[in-house]
């Protein structure tokens, strides 16, 4: 049976209008994206797909995405003035609308973030009620919701690696809620995404990152904090 709602789903959340899928969800996609990126980017290309393509201005999703890129929270009153804040903080941006990408959910956004030579692409979906799904990170299927703590591991694809990492998390008393693995080509790079109920220690993140077959570890604690 589906999980029952909270009293605060009925009276809440406290949010910035006009709608949770066009404001809160969009802010959260950007908040997750900058955590994948590692910081606030200098430059970003923002593509709104499908039903977002036509409506993003009317609903203020352009302000919401910039606000999230600036790390504003979903209930931050400054969202309304995100254009001014982006200008002040030197974030440059370009918007693009694509109307018919049938492979994507109606409310999809692609972010191409850059700072110097560092570039990351994140594709996210606003699923309604402020819930999101980060579908892709740099072309790898990521599929995390950012409602929990997320660990993204880029590693060489070698046997036993997944079991090894799940073991480490288990020893942290972290309950793994979801896990997905994508491989790019045979024995190429793999991307492992874990959603964990409780946070992990920085030490653990550093340990995983120190393993010879691991290229990069991105740890994203609760994005609403």
């Amino acid at each position, binding site marked *: 049976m589906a999980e*029952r*709602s*909270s*009293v*605060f*789903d*009925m*009276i*809440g*959340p*406290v*949010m*910035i*209008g*006009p*709608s*949770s899928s066009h*404001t809160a969800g969009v802010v959260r996609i950007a908040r997750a994206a900058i955590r994948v990126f590692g910081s606030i980017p200098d430059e970003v290309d923002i593509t709104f797909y499908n039903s977002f*393509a*036509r*409506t*993003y*201005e*009317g*609903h*203020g999703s352009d*302000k919401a995405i910039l606000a999230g890129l600036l790390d504003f929270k979903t*209930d931050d*009153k400054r*969202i*309304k003035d995100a254009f001014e804040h982006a200008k002040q903080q030197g974030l440059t941006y370009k918007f*693009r*609308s*694509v*109307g*018919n*990408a*049938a*492979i994507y959910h109606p409310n999809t956004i692609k972010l191409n973030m850059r700072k110097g030579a560092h570039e990351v692409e994140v594709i996210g979906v606003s699923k*309604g009620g402020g819930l999101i799904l980060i579908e892709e990170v740099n072309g790898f299927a990521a599929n995390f919701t950012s409602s929990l703590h997320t660990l993204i591991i880029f590693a060489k694809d070698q046997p036993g690696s997944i079991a090894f990492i799940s073991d480490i998390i288990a020893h942290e008393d972290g309950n793994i809620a979801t896990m997905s693995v994508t491989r790019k080509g045979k024995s190429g790079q793999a991307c492992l995404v874990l959603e964990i109920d409780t946070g992990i220690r920085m030490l653990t993140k550093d340990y995983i990152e120190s393993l010879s077959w691991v290229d990069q570890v991105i740890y994203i604690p609760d994005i609403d904090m």
Partner: protein
Amino acid sequence: MQTEDYLLFDDFKSWKKYCEKHNKLLFEPVLDYEIHQKGTKETAIWEGIATAYQVMCEAVDTGLNEEMTSRSGMINNGAKKVYRYPKAVLSAEFQRLIARALAAKEVNSCMGRVVAAPTAGASGILPGTLYTLQELHDIPNQKIYEGMLVGAGIALIIERNASIAGAVGGCQAETGTAAAMASGAIVYCLGGDINQVFGAVAITIQCMLGLVCDPVAGLVEIPCVVRNASAAAIAYSSAQISLASVDSVIPVDECIMAMGEIGQAMEARYKETALGGLAATPTGQAISRRVLIHDIEMLDDEPEQ
């Protein structure tokens, strides 16, 4: 199936039975539900409710004092005009009620801070009604908070048996649910008994049944803002009726069933798709052409991948 020792808010009948059996006030099982289901501490729940009420009142004040123009221009400081208009059609209190419901909802349309209750589209109804109730009857905050918990219980049951989302059940599900929450809270705060509280919910639902979701240009502005005002008025009229113990005849659970049935039968064009009703009128279409983005790329063959 009620195996747990707390109430799950499946219907109004069991809520009433539970309160009568355990000699509890209506808000108490809502509190227990949240504590057991979500593991939230009681103090945190009261704090959350207090914050929500504070944000609601702020939204009312913001809407009545600050510039409220939406990007489409369809919303343009309506609440302030109503609030300041020299002639009250009914009474000054009624005028303030309507202005406040409009105000909080305008804040939502203009990217200000609100509480979704139960949704963003209906975010002016509880603020308008509760703010006015407190002012008129000098009700302490704690009592208002209890009323809000009762409202949350009402919404939990509606969500379970019908819907609280316009995209699923039409506008009856959004503004209808909010009006039912408000009406129940009003009667509770004024000392009504369980039958009178639930009667107010039943009558409110009867008044809101069938309302379709047809936002012009898909924006949460027209008719959403004025529907927040009318829903606030209906919450009060139903409370007045039920406080006098005038029977709703159709029991509240059956009213919710009717709402669910109507919601299911409603065509997709009346469910937030902006394809029917006011959105499909010539003027609605013209506005939509004006506010929607036309500079859109169309992909030939799904490249990108």
